[in-house]
C-alpha cells in the first residue's frame, strides 16, 4: 500500500481503475456466484411461492396488511438518497472529498431504486397487473387514480430512477472513453459503444460540465420530494401514528441518514477489495462520519418530537400508540433502533473513531439495521394499534418475508458486483481534479498548480 506522502500520478489512477475492471480474481467469481445464488434462493424462489400461494405466505394479517415488504421498499428508497446527496449536493457545494466516492454512491442509488421497485412487485396482491398503475391509453378507458399518494410514488420514483440513470451514465462517459482507450477485445467494443464517441475536446468537456451540473441541480429536489412522497403514503392516512406532519422531513432525514451509512459500508468494501486505498482515505471516512453525526442528531430530535407530541396530545389513540411502541410487543426492536441509530452514533464525536475503518463499518451496518427496524416499526406498531381496540393485532413476519429481505440485499450486492466490473467505480477524471497537475520539465511552478 502506498503512503499518503507519495504523489499520485495520473497514470496511477488510470491503471488502478482499469485494473479493477479487467483483472478479475477468483474471489470475485465466488462472491458473484454466492450473491446470485442467494438472490435466486432467498428472493426469487420464495417470491414465486408467494405468487402461487398468495400474499398469505407473508405474515401479514388484518389489520396489519402492510409488512416487511413495504418496510424494505422504504428502506431501499431511503438508501438511494446516498448518491443524490454525494453526487449532487456536494457537487454544487464544490466539495473535493466526494470525488473518489460519488460514482459508487450513485450506483448505490440506482440499484437501491431497482431493488425497491422489485419490493413493490413482491408486495402487491396481483403484481401481474402492476402496469395498471401506469397511465397508458387502454381499452378500459381508465386512468389510474392521480389523487393517490401511491401514484405520486410511481411518478416520483420513475422520475428519480430515470434521472439517476441518466446522471450516472452521463457522468461516466469520459471514464468509459478512458477505459476504452486502454482495453482490448470485447471490452473495447463495449466501452466504444458506451462512451458514445467521446474524444475529450474542450467543447465536450464544457458541455458535460454544464449538463452535469444542470442534472445535479434537477435531482436535488428529487431527493427531498421522492422520500416526502413516499412518506405521504403513510402521512395522508388518518391512522394514528401514521398521520403525522413530521413524516416528510422525518423520512427525508432518515433516508439521507441511512444512505450515508450505506455509503460508508460500500466505501469500506470498495477500498478493501478493489485496492482503492489511495483514493478512499481516512479523510473521506472522517467527513462521512461528521455528516452521519449531524444526521443522527437530527434523527434523534425528530424521534423525541414524535414522542413528545404524542404524549402531549393526551388522546387515547396517540397515547396507546406510544405506549405500545415503547413497552409493547415490539419494544425490544424499538430500543434496539434507539441504540443503533441514536446512541451508538454518538461515538462519532471522537476523531479517532471517525478515522478508524472497521469501527466505522460496524457502526454503518448497525445504523442501517436500526433504520430498517425503524421502517418496520412505523408499519408494524401503527397498524397494530388503530382506532378500534377490537381490531388490535400483532404482526410477525414469516419465513418467506425474512428470506426475501435477505434476498433483496443479495440482489443489491449482485447488481453492485456487476456494476463494479462494467462501470469504473471510481471516477477517473474527477479524482484527477483533486490531484496536482504532474510537474513537467521546464514548466514554471505557477502554471502547474490550481
Amino acid at each position: 500500500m502506498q503512503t499518503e506522502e507519495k504523489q499520485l500520478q495520473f497514470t496511477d489512477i488510470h491503471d488502478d481503475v482499469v485494473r479493477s475492471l479487467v483483472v478479475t480474481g477468483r474471489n470475485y467469481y465466488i462472491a458473484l456466484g454466492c450473491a446470485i445464488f442467494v438472490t435466486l434462493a432467498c428472493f426469487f424462489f420464495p417470491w414465486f411461492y408467494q405468487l402461487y400461494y398468495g400474499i398469505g405466505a407473508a405474515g401479514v394479517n388484518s389489520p396489519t396488511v402492510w409488512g416487511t415488504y413495504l418496510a424494505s421498499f422504504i428502506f431501499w428508497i431511503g438508501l438511494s438518497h446516498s448518491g443524490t446527496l454525494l453526487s449532487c449536493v456536494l457537487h454544487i457545494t464544490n466539495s473535493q472529498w466526494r470525488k473518489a466516492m460519488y460514482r459508487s454512491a450513485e450506483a448505490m442509488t440506482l440499484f437501491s431504486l431497482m431493488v425497491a421497485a422489485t419490493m413493490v412487485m413482491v408486495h402487491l396482491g396481483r403484481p401481474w397487473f402492476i402496469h395498471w398503475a401506469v397511465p397508458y391509453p387502454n381499452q378500459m378507458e381508465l386512468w389510474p387514480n392521480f389523487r393517490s399518494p401511491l401514484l405520486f410514488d410511481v411518478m416520483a420514483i420513475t422520475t428519480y430512477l430515470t434521472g439517476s440513470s441518466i446522471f450516472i451514465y452521463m457522468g461516466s462517459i469520459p471514464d468509459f472513453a478512458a477505459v476504452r482507450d486502454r482495453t482490448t477485445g470485447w471490452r473495447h467494443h463495449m466501452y466504444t459503444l458506451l462512451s458514445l464517441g467521446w474524444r475529450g475536446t474542450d467543447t465536450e468537456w464544457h458541455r458535460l460540465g454544464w449538463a452535469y451540473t444542470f442534472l445535479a441541480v434537477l435531482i436535488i429536489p428529487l431527493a427531498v420530494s421522492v422520500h416526502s412522497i413516499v412518506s405521504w403514503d403513510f402521512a395522508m392516512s388518518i391512522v394514528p401514528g401514521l398521520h403525522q406532519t413530521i413524516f416528510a422531513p422525518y423520512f427525508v432525514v432518515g433516508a439521507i441518514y441511512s444512505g450515508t451509512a450505506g455509503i460508508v459500508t460500500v466505501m469500506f468494501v470498495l477500498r478493501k477489495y478493489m485496492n482503492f486505498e489511495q483514493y478512499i482515505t481516512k479523510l473521506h471516512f472522517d467527513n462521512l462520519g461528521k455528516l452521519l453525526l449531524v444526521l443522527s442528531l437530527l434523527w434523534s430530535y425528530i424521534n423525541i418530537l414524535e414522542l413528545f407530541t404524542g404524549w402531549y396530545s393526551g388522546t387515547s389513540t396517540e397515547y396507546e400508540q406510544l405506549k405500545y411502541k415503547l413497552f409493547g410487543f415490539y419494544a425490544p426492536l424499538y430500543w434496539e433502533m434507539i441504540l443503533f441509530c441514536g446512541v451508538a452514533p454518538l461515538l462519532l464525536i471522537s476523531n479517532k473513531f471517525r478515522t478508524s475503518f472497521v469501527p466505522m463499518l460496524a457502526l454503518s451496518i448497525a445504523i442501517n439495521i436500526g433504520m430498517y427496524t425503524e421502517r418496520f416499526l412505523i408499519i408494524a406498531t401503527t397498524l397494530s394499534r388503530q382506532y378500534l381496540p377490537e381490531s388490535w393485532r400483532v404482526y410477525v413476519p414469516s419465513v418467506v418475508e425474512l428470506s426475501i429481505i435477505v434476498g433483496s440485499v443479495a440482489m443489491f450486492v449482485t447488481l453492485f458486483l456487476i456494476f463494479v466490473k462494467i462501470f469504473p467505480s471510481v471516477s477517473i477524471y474527477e479524482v484527477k481534479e483533486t490531484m496536482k497537475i504532474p510537474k513537467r520539465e521546464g514548466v514554471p511552478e505557477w502554471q502547474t498548480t490550481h
Partner: protein
Amino acid sequence: MNIWDRFVSSWREFRKDGYYDEFDYAWTMTIDLDRCTGCGACVTACQAENNIPIVGEEQLGRGREMQWIRIERYWEGEYPNARLKFIPMLCQQCDAAPCETVCPVTATYHNQDGLNAQVYNRCIGTRSCAVYCPYTVRYFNYNDHRWDAPLEQQLNPDVTVREKGVMEKCTFCVQRIRQAKDQAKDDGRRRVRDGEVQPACVQTCPSEALVFGDRKDASNRVSKSMNDARAYRVLGELNTQPSVIYLKKVDADAD
C-alpha cells in the same frame, strides 16, 4: 364530440358544486345499539349471501379474518358491575372515504348511489385502502379459498367469488340493490320503495336493530331513524361522513 371537448365537459361536470353530494339514491343504515344483542345472525347471513370464504382455524389464528360485518365487544367496569356492549362494525360507506383517495388504480370509488364500491377485477392488491380505513372494515384475500365439496353448491351466483390478492368489503348487498333498481325500472321508472331492498344483515336481524333505506326520502324509516336524538357516528370526529348511523345505547340507570 372529440376528445378535447369530452375532456372539458367531464371536467366541468366534475368541478360542479355538489358533484359528490347528489346521488341517485343515498343508501343509509342505522344500527340501534340498544337493540343489538350481539347474536351474530347478521354475520352468518352476510357470509351466506356474499360467498364469504371459510377461512379456517389456521388462517384465523394468523389473524386473517373474513367477516364483512363483525360484532365488536367492549367491556366496561369490573365485577360485579361489569357491562358488555356490542357494536356491529361494517363498511361505513363513507362519503368522504379515506380509502377511495389512496387506491392507485381506482379499484374503489364512490358510485352514484352513495356507496363505496369495490371493483374486484381492478384491484391489484396494494392494500393501502385497508391501511387508510379507520374502521378496519376492509378484508384481503391472502390466499385462494376452497369450499369442501359440496359446500360450494350453496354459493350465491349473483356475487363473484374473489381470487387471492383482491380486497373486499361490505357492499350493502349491492347485488340486491341492483336487482331492486332493475325491478323498479321494469315496473316503469318508479323509485325503489322503502323496505323493498334490504341487505342480508338487515333482513335477518332478530331484534330489528338494523334499518336500511334511502335517506333522500324523508318519509323513509331510515330517515326518521337517523334523525333520532340518540344518533351518532362512530369515529365521527374524523369526518369521514359515514352512511352508517348508530343509535346510542341507553344506560337506564344514568341520566
